[in-house]
């Protein structure tokens, strides 16, 4: 069984990593020569996915935010109610939720990067 301290270490590290990665993501948006608004236009957004490094940043944001967010939700739900059945259900639902979000988001990143 995974110790709570190991889970919380992951929680803190993913939180810190998410801050750094989202900051990089925002900086990319702010520093494009055409300006911030132009960077959000459809063609420019799709073009981002063609850049492997940038796609990797987006994938890392997806993974870190999903893990951090669903663990945060687990902590809130554990505090809301106690009981072995409830706690087991919360654990597996949160793991399933995080996996589902990561799989769906990765699929989106891959599809966008392969668009012609």
């Amino acid at each position, binding site marked *: 069984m995974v*110790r*709570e*301290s190991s889970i*919380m*270490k992951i929680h*803190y590290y993913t939180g810190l990593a998410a801050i750094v990665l989202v900051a990089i993501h925002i900086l990319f948006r702010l520093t494009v020569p055409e300006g911030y608004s132009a960077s959000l236009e459809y063609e420019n957004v799709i073009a981002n996915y063609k850049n492997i490094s940038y796609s990797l940043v987006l994938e890392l944001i997806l993974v870190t935010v999903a893990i951090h967010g669903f663990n945060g939700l687990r*902590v809130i739900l*554990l*505090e*809301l109610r*106690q009981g072995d059945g409830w*706690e087991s259900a919360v654990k597996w639902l949160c793991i399933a939720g995080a996996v589902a979000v990561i799989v769906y988001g990765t699929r989106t990143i891959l599809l966008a990067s392969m668009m012609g």
Partner: protein
Amino acid sequence: MAKRVKIRVFRYNPAHDTDARYDEFEVEAERWTTVLDALLYIKAHKDHSIALRYSCRMASCGSCGMLINGIPRLACYTKVYELGSDVVTCRPLPNFPIIRDLAADFTAFFAKHKSMKPYIINEVAESIDGREFIQKPEEVEKYLQFSYCIKCGLCYAACPTVATDRRFPGPQALAQMYRYLIDSRDKATDERLRIVDDRHGVWRCHFAGSCSMVCPKGVDPALGIQLLRAYLLGMNRDSKVVAELYRREPK
């Protein structure tokens, strides 16, 4: 100069009453009158059926904790004048089951304290044989303030996590865990860390800090909990050096 104050006392007997109520009493309060003095005056002269727990009357035993004007305090350590109000409302401590009126049930609180193994664990101490552990002043400093805890339960009553998570040990128990963990005479570090490294353990503290605000002995349980977390994260592991036994040589 004495002033007249209204003391509102929470009345509830779970064995008989369906609803709680407040009984109101007028008492004369001098500058030195504590809330416990006022309650004992009421009990002696106006209504002897009020249930409350008290013993030492000098903030040493931790028996007379109650919610006074919305804040957990020791009744013997709270003067009526310092409350700055003509109405003093006394309720039993929150987060504790009520036995009757102002008397709260500390069974779960003490069970959580006991589960932290609040004693030195060191097999060497069993064969101490005239020797003693020598601790440097800086080693004593690490746990000294936490050893001032009188187990009055005020921090436990003020804790928002205890209010929602009945399995959370509470600030008192966790601070005591740190007190023994960091004591250089104790060798059960891993055993202790396993107890608090639980999904309802030390990680569930929100660091509201209300425990430290209400402690009548100046203990900072919130600090103890953060230091315990830091220890679990490996941030201050070097801070503990296990003491060895020495024989004090006669001068």
